[in-house]
């Protein structure tokens, strides 16, 4: 037998052979995106999300009820054991009730275990489906988008998705808590009707009162957390600007500013502590009075002879079981309703922004093999026609064409080439092989045109993983080496498998830009568009790149949007737009003479 737990849970020799149930499959399931409708309110959306997987939530709810009722039954069993066995001095009854206790514990432990695993499965499945929805429609839109996703999408896809999924616990945990409160009340009804009524009326009142109190607390806690986040953000911001601060000897001023933010947060923390204190006093008093009232009433009934001594002890046990359930509802369920709706509103907003009037709302998720028909090339499929302010320009196959324009015009032309379906400046028209590009699908377009934007991003991984695209057929070693050499990366790229770091931060700005250029040169679409590819590269290296660019382009055309003389000098010809500006490009005063 194996000496270690094969599942990695350090289980002992007696249990390590048992299978571990309820684990997630290693590969992601094929998740269908959620649909959104115009009539969706955040509340309705949450309801639709949490009711979407009844095959998991229904068993989870039943198991959770078993678990919570079992927890509530423990004090009752103890009370009955004291009455029947201890008071009566009956050893047989003692064994019987210990047996009952053990059975209750086994049942509630197993129920708790499988509730937990079903809950986590439900949470993760819902989160995965929500992320699939947001990823395919906002982060990686397949269809026309209104605008690129802003930084908020990151928090939406992590925090908001998680909070909406937590609403599924309302179906499992909250219902089970309510059921066990009802169980306690019914048990008390059996003992004495008035006790049952007191709990049935009193418990909701206590829940309501504590809910009110906790709302003030959670508002104050949120305020404090915002302050803390701001202080932490300030620290990151200052440290991120470390070299700038060092460069102008602003260390003391930076420290002073941070201290100021930190002290404000401390004041917030103290304020929050005071609110917490008031909440604790109030909830302690409410709970204490409630429990004392039930116990005192039961004591009076016992004195009065309406209740046996066993009934009194059972009542005491039942009230003990009541408090954790009330606390669970106040502490978890009520905040959950509010936070899931707020997050659902943010998700709907993100989806709404990305998706105008029903386009692509029901688009299938990404599938393999899109855009294969685009590889059928008609004779002039590789001709790129560009019309700016009515003046036509053409990039013929295998041509290396420079384009010089003021920054604004250059940016507009580059943006139009980047995403032909995005909104574009009115003065710019683009045709590919004679067809207006907006009629091509994104897949068809990008099968022919690669655009390397000026604001480029390296993805974490190795230099090689950045240079090669798994969807592209041609990442032969020769092609990579040629691209690396042409982009003048050969002085620092000694190992293609070296990590580039998050956002390429292991490389300097100039190195990042050269790797991005190599990535563009390593692609194999018939047309390549480069926008200001060497702004962070020194003039000596830029000259080297300009000389090598002519050799590496081989069988494709390159449109080089730049105004650095070194690069333009290597082009077959240069389109000069410095005197032609599309109307949307704004006032002429922004243009500067090259």
């Amino acid at each position: 037998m194996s000496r270690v737990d094969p599942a990695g849970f350090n289980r002992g020799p007696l249990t390590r052979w048992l299978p571990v149930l309820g684990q997630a499959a290693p590969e992601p399931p094929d998740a269908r995106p959620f649909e959104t409708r115009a009539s969706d309110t955040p509340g309705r959306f949450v309801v639709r999300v949490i009711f979407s997987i009844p095959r998991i939530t229904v068993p989870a709810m039943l198991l959770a009820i078993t678990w919570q009722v079992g927890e509530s039954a423990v004090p009752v069993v103890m009370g009955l054991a004291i009455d029947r066995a201890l008071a009566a001095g009956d050893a047989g009854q003692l064994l019987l009730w210990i047996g009952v206790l053990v059975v209750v514990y086994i049942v509630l432990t197993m129920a708790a275990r499988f509730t937990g695993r079903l809950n986590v499965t439900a949470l993760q499945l819902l989160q995965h489906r929500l992320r699939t929805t947001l990823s395919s429609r906002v982060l990686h839109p397949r269809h026309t988008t209104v605008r690129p996703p802003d930084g908020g999408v990151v928090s939406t896809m992590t925090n908001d998705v998680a909070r909406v999924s937590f609403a599924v616990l309302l179906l499992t945990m909250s219902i089970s808590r309510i059921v066990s409160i009802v169980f306690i009340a019914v048990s008390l009804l059996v003992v004495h009707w008035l006790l049952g009524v007191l709990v049935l009326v009193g418990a909701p009142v206590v829940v309501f009162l504590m809910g009110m109190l906790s709302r003030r607390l959670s508002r104050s806690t949120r305020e404090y957390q915002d302050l803390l986040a701001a202080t932490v953000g300030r620290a990151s911001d200052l440290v991120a600007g470390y070299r700038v601060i060092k460069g102008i000897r602003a260390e003391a001023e930076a420290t002073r500013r941070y201290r100021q933010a930190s002290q404000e947060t401390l004041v917030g923390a103290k304020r929050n502590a005071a609110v917490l204190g008031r909440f604790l006093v109030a909830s302690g008093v409410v709970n204490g009075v409630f429990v004392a009232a039930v116990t005192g009433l039961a004591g009076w009934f016992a004195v009065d002879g309406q209740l046996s001594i066993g009934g009194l002890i059972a009542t005491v046990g039942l009230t003990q079981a009541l408090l954790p359930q009330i606390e669970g509802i106040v502490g978890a369920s009520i905040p959950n309703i509010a936070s899931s709706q707020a997050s659902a509103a943010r998700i709907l907003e993100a989806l709404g922004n990305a998706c105008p009037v029903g386009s692509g709302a029901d688009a299938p998720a990404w599938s393999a093999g899109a855009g294969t028909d685009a590889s059928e090339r008609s004779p002039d499929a590789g001709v790129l026609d560009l019309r700016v302010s009515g003046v036509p320009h053409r990039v013929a196959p295998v041509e290396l064409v420079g384009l010089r324009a003021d920054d604004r015009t250059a940016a507009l032309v580059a943006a139009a080439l980047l995403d032909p379906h995005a909104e574009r400046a009115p003065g710019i028209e683009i045709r590919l092989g004679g067809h207006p590009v907006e009629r091509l699908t994104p897949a068809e377009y990008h099968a022919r045109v690669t655009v390397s934007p000026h604001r480029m991003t390296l993805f974490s991984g190795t230099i090689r993983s950045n240079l090669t695209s798994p969807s592209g057929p041609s990442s032969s070693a020769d092609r990579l080496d040629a691209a690396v050499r042409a982009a003048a990366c050969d002085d620092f790229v000694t190992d293609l498998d070296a990590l580039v770091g998050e956002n390429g931060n292991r490389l300097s700005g100039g190195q990042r830009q050269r790797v991005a250029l190599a990535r563009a040169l390593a692609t194999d679409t018939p047309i390549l568009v480069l926008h200001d590819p060497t702004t962070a590269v020194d003039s000596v290296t830029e000259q080297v790149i300009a000389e090598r660019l002519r050799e590496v382009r081989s069988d494709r055309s390159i449109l080089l949007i730049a105004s650095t003389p070194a690069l333009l000098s290597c082009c077959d010809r240069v389109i000069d737009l410095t005197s032609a500006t599309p109307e949307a490009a704004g006032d002429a005063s922004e243009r500067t003479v090259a």
Partner: protein
Amino acid sequence: MSAAAGTNTAAEPGLPIASGRETGRELWRLSRGHRARLAAIGALGVGGAGFGLTFPLVTGYLVDRVQTGTADLGVVLTVTAVMVAAAVVGAVGSAVTIVLATRTYHTILAVLRERLVGRAMTLPQHRVERAGTGDLISRSSDDVTTVADAAPAVIGAVTTTVFTIIVSLAGLVALDWPYAAAFVVTLPIYVVGMRWYLRTGPQVYRAERAAMSARAQQIVESQRGYATVIGFGLAEQRHHSVLRASWGVAVQAARARTVQSMFNARLNCAECLSLATVLVTGFLLIQAGSSTIGAATAAMLLVLRLLEPINQLLLVIDVVQSAAASLNRIVGVTAIPDAESSEPGAREPAMTGDASVRIRRVTFRYGSGPRVLDDIDLDIPTGQHLAVVGASGAGKTTLAAVIAGVHPPETGTVTRPERTAVITQEVHVFAGTVRENLTLSAPDASDREIRQALNTTGASAILDLLPDGLETRVGSGGHQLTDAQAQQIALARLLLFHPQLAIFDEATAEAGSTQAGLLDRAAEAALLGRTGLVIAHRLSQAAACDRIVVMEHGRITECGTHDQLLAAAGVYAGLWAAWEAGRNVREVE
């Protein structure tokens, strides 16, 4: 060297991490002003928990009075009144304890995080460069947040939990010592369960957290690289990467919950056993006539009351552990002695009285790597502007860093003026208003001075484009400035500092093509009347300087004015010819 210390190897010369003992000593020192309060917290905590005992004991009393038939309405009312009073006093006692403890916790944390950032700013720069700023960022953000978020867990564990356990055990002893003994025999199960959890839990939680940050990173990269994703047609590939990372968390989350449910099963086992032993003990004691039904009821209630805090204490152990690990990383930085800057070899450049720079026979290498600067001799007289031209890897940036005092030279001497400012290619806009960005280098600058600096660098035009002028919030979460605008602001900030020597390390490189001219003129204006060292990015910049040096492989190969170097027909002349040719290309169509 222990295995733990060995993980911080010489290959990655990171910042130090304090040991648990060092952190403990530091916390003890920091608690100096709060010790009376800490004592009060202890006393109040025990007192508050003591009132919590009232309910079980009074209930036991009531049961006994009912059992013996000696109870009447007066007894019931008295018992109820005592319960209410104890609940009120107990609630106030524990609330005051928690409030005091929370205030103390956050006060000490505030001191620590301020020292952390303050120390980070005053550490020798080469030390931080070697470790990378990423480490400092994660300590001042992630670690500070971890410690702050652990406050309820730590305070709850110390105040309510520990005190309740102590007081409840005392209550059991007071009832009848066998009840306490019956509970204590179940403790080994808790100990075994906890040891298993501490062995298994942390690694599973670490894997879960790692999966979560991998997921966040994938999403961030897709968002930040949106243009690249679209331009290269990578949307489908990125979509699948994000989903894989998303599901990676699901796999780890299921494992983490499994560990929790296994731990809960062990706790339930101990709970069940302790309740059963209380029943058996009560049965035997009552049979022997030394206990009453009421006492057994009170013991049952006390044990039920003990279980919840014990479970809570065990469940927050990993929160407390990770807070402790974060504290060690924070204290690791705050405890670096001030004397660090005078470590062997870290010779600050000597200061010249005037604004000139003198470099004599300077060599430099990173660690044990090849020589990056090889026997450099260079003078920049007061007021002169010197340009450095060379390919990447020629040693230009290293030369600038050595002159600025970031790196001490291996051999040779560097003298420079005291007020030296550096602007690099690295653009950073601080979150805050434009004014706050500018006054970083001159906290007392007047509005007039600020306007003047902005006018000089041509940055006033930027203000006109901003909604609130100087008070516009920029940087992270605010208005986004372009790199060129940010660098113009940085140049104005440099002016407010009034440096004698300004070092521009490709400071104007990140401009778009045609903004370059604008930025170069701003840089020229900023240099007026000071000594300047310009690591030239564009040849037009170099040509505008008084003198130019060309560097190759860590050596100066050409030196002279623009005209002299053109006449010499060397490397510089070749570069210039290509540059001129490109400038004269016209459209042929």
